[in-house]
């Protein structure tokens, strides 16, 4: 039996005694495409940071391939797990190609400069993410959608087994959202990269993710295939609004919030 890539066992975590996550059990297998959904403040970002080792989980609560994640050297972990932030501006004017090349860091030892091989990997990562055209421009001068793709390119250059992405689509228009998700789908299908991403758009989440994990107030309330997780009862409870669901003929579930003053009477079918 092979072990899971990442396992959270009864994970509880908080800042300054304020609990953010409570009793989380989560198994991530290699090759999965997981969407982390839930209201603002439900703990999605914190969970991603814990899974990527950016925040220290309590002992014995997260395992990376059978090893307590706390015992895995940071560099070793970075060779397997990449994380990308939601939005970012840099304090200094790094070029996009330099940002992407930073993804090679965990593969380089002290005193070494990037080799031809590293440049080639970064180049390939930029091809995959369609970021080559602005490789020589400055990160702070490109649009939000382009920035997000550069950050993903940097994560791709890291050659990880898993990518954890914090709301990569939230600030983007529909075209860029599709573009990002299609890049991730391609990485998942062609390179078998495990993907876990936090997102708000439930419709797109159901279209792209094979599994959804619904968080509410620091707890996992549903975990399964999109059509099992996106059910009106639970969504109404979690988001505290009235909701109607439609099957999208092109795949996925359309989540339609109802206007509160009409919700009791409206039946437009």
């Amino acid at each position: 039996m092979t072990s899971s890539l990442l396992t959270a066992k009864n994970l509880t975590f908080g800042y300054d005694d304020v609990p953010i996550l409570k009793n989380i059990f989560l198994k991530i297998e290699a090759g999965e495409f997981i969407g982390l959904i839930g209201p603002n403040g439900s703990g999605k970002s914190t969970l991603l940071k814990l899974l990527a080792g950016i925040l220290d989980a309590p002992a014995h609560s997260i395992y990376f391939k059978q090893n307590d994640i706390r015992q895995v050297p940071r560099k070793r972990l970075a060779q397997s797990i990449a994380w990308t932030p939601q939005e970012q501006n840099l304090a200094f004017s790094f070029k996009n190609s330099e940002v992407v090349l930073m993804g090679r860091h965990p593969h380089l030892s002290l005193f070494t400069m990037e080799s031809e091989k590293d440049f080639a990997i970064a180049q390939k990562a930029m091809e995959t993410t369609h970021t080559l055209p602005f490789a020589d421009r400055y990160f702070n001068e490109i649009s939000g959608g382009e920035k997000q793709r550069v950050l993903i390119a940097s994560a791709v250059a890291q050659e990880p087994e898993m990518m954890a992405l914090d709301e990569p689509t939230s600030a983007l228009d529909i075209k860029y959202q599709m573009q990002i998700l299609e890049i991730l789908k391609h990485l998942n299908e062609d390179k078998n990269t495990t993907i876990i991403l936090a997102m708000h758009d439930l419709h797109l989440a159901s279209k792209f993710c094979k599994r959804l994990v619904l968080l509410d107030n620091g707890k996992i309330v549903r975990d399964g295939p999109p059509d099992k997780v996106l059910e009106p009862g639970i969504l109404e409870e979690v988001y505290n609004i009235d909701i109607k669901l439609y099957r999208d003929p092109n795949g996925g579930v359309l989540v339609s919030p109802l206007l509160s003053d009409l919700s009791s009477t409206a039946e437009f079918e």
Partner: protein
Amino acid sequence: MTQKHYITTLGIFLTFLLATLAIAPLIGATNISLIKAFSSEIPFKENVDAHILFLARLPRILLAGIAGSALAVAGAVFQALLRNDLAAPFTLGVSSGAAFGAVLSIAMGWNFRFLGVPALSIFAFFGALLAVALVFSLVKVRHNEFETSTLLLAGVTANFFFAALVMFIHYLSDFTQSFQIIRWLMGGLDITDYGTVLSIIPPVALGFVILMVIARDLNLISAGVSTALSRGVNVSRIQKSGFIVSSLVTGTIVAFTGPIGFVGLIAPHIVRLIVGPDLRLLLPCAMMFGAAFLILCDAVARTLIAPAEIPVGVITAILGGPFFVWLLKRKKNS
């Protein structure tokens, strides 16, 4: 960044530094003849040109070079670690701590030497250490990173605190001491010999080596702490080593030269505008540029109103400011 680009850029900065080193000894209040200075026919004792060149100018030029390079490198590291281009080597209180030590030793009239190092420098260095210890004792590692906002706040507080102590001691001191204190606080390179130069080379060189070793990690931290962590950087360890090493390097320099302002802020800026923010290239270039910059400023300070001298800190600000504005404007237009 390719290897060729890297070496070419270093070469250009090295050429600039070497040219400065070649010209600076010839600049001064008195014209000297190199032929006479190197002449073997005149005994050294009677060779005025050689005296001026080797005993007055050269050690001072070397001190200026080392001080300029150290402050520039420390400034670049502080800016990267605090992700703030207004940061400078003196931001975290190192110079005020040193000033407190120096002023204390002046007011107390401590004049001894220890291993050839004057009491003033020893106390200034320990003052710098005190400030660093104080500031760092207030900052904790939280969620795998150093709380840099607290660090900045603690540094600013330490600056005010030690400045108040300096003012208090200054207020109580007599006229002679008061003049000495003012003069020290302006910073200067005038009192130096080869012994001083030799005693600051080892700690400064060691600091450079350590900072160069962690330069790539510092790059990632300067781009963002969380991404640095997810790229495998041990952020808190690198932040600590970076802050402490550059503080100690700064403290060593300030102990001997007093607080020479502006170099540590502006030299890294200027070099970053030219070579970009990658510290693997920025640090060695800042080191060479900072050295050349301070040597040139000192040459101006020595000659502008000769035979009197202007404190070099005045020149760094007067020359550096407009130059920096010009560079910023040029960058914007391109």
